[in-house]
């Protein structure tokens, strides 16, 4: 739990540093302030499923394709092609507890959504469906929005990167 606590503290500090930013970072700050950093951490919502959770019924597109709308800022191997899905880690991997967030527009309803790009960790790289889009991605010194970083750093299984998720965390506006 120590790593988890550190991650929450980091996100809170980082958000405080960036509260003057415009755009979705500002909105992210509002979310963190309102709900507490820990509830943003995807690990709090991880549960086991017998099968990879598919995309939601009202979505359109192919989650095995780099063109799929949620992947607007991803950089890595798509978990959909690696035994998981856009929101499910493949078996035997561990979801990263912290990650970076992007904002993508869902073409079906025209709304922007905050997407959490958690990594699945603990095995060597999947190597399938490499996808690099980078919309809104920033340099590594702005880590909360950087996709060049290996976000497996908070896991118990180590930093070995396997694949990337793109999880809908809620509307951005």
């Amino acid at each position, binding site marked *: 739990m120590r790593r988890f606590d550190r991650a929450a503290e980091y996100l809170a500090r980082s958000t405080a*540093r960036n509260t*003057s930013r415009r755009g979705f970072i500002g909105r992210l700050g509002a979310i963190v302030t309102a709900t507490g950093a820990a509830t943003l951490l995807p690990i709090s919502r991880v549960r086991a499923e017998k099968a990879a959770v598919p995309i939601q019924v009202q979505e359109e597109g192919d989650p095995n394709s780099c063109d799929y709308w949620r992947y607007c800022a991803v950089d890595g191997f798509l978990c959909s092609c690696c035994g998981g899905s856009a929101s499910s880690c493949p078996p035997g991997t561990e979801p990263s507890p*912290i990650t970076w967030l992007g904002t993508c527009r869902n073409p079906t309803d025209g709304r922007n959504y905050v997407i959490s790009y958690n990594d699945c960790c*603990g095995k*060597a790289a999947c190597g399938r469906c490499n996808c690099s*889009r980078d919309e809104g991605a920033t340099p*590594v010194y702005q880590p*909360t929005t950087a996709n060049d970083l*290996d976000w497996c750093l908070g896991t118990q299984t180590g930093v070995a990167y396997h694949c990337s998720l793109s999880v809908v965390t809620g509307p951005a506006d």
Partner: protein
Amino acid sequence: MYADRLKGLPLFMAALGLLVSSADARPAKKAAPPKVPVLATEDVTLVELKDRMPPHWVVVNDVVFTHLIDGRSYIVDADSGTYLGTVPGGHSHVGVQFTPDASTLLIPATFFSRGSRGERTDVITWFGLKDLMPGAEVVIPPKRVQALPLLSSIPLTDDGRFMLIYNFTPEQTMTVVDAAAKTLVGEFETPGCALAHMTGPRSFMMQCADGSMQSGALAEDGKITLGATTPPLFEREDPASDKPVRIASSRWLFITFSGAVAEVDNATGTPTPGARWKLTAAGEEAWRPGGLQPYAYHAPSGLLYVLMHEGGPGTHKHPGTEIWVFDVAAKKRVARLPLETPSTAVSISNDADPLLYTALFGSGTLVVRRPSDAAILRKVEGLGSDITLIQAPPVAPAAATAP
């Protein structure tokens, strides 16, 4: 038409069979073996390289993205296109640091006790160029940043005394190793700021999340003290790349995703913004710098080589389709050199008669070019899978001539 031609095929094949049969029936004539000396018995030998890296040898780094635990560096003679040897790099390989005399490579690396899992160990290992064998090593805190490779995450002071390792856990700290004593100095907090761009024997600048710059200093025992910071120098919407260009001991060019250039000097220990200019002129706004190693600066000529492509926001990792050459002192473009193959990395040797290098991530090919027009001199193919950074060695100052 074709069916008519094929009608005769069985007859032809039968005739051919007869010819072969009759040939087999003849008594065989053994050709006399040529009279040459018997092959000598051989010993197994082991190649040794030079004591120091010549200016046109180059280190090509491969992160091996699909097998990240197996990063490595290839050493290539760019004059001849000869592959000279391999140095292992471990998980999430960045690159090497050359000692100032170019005789030794320092490689920070991450390993797991059971391949891709198990206990993590981060270690700096010294590889002598001559035998490319792992020599001394210093185990460092297992925290070094795991990211696409950035040389400013593993800088060595100009005199080779200290090596700095940027950590991200996500706490931000800097590990310092005494490279002369080969001991760990310690780990120092650098909250909110990342990387270390060296600005003198014992000073550096860091880039911070709000777009500001932070200065840092190393004491003679290697301990880090953080100094002055600047106000934010860059807009969130157009951040400076994390791959700045060192143009003098204390001066760096920070170039934004859209191609705006800002010079920052840390000579006084306080980062001081200087001239601002743009890579693009009016009407060229669609062009942007991009790639994993988009910039190469050649100090003897003062020329900056930049990989440029046409694209909008979010294309800062796209490969360049042209190399634009700038006279940094004049802040003026002096050439546009189209590339026949897009490239994600550009580098240049540090001597007065340089070679220009490019590579495309995923191609496994190093392209050696003439700097004046980017004409291809030779290609070195089969260099692994995912070339990231190309590193030319330092050029030792010319030895003093005997009186």
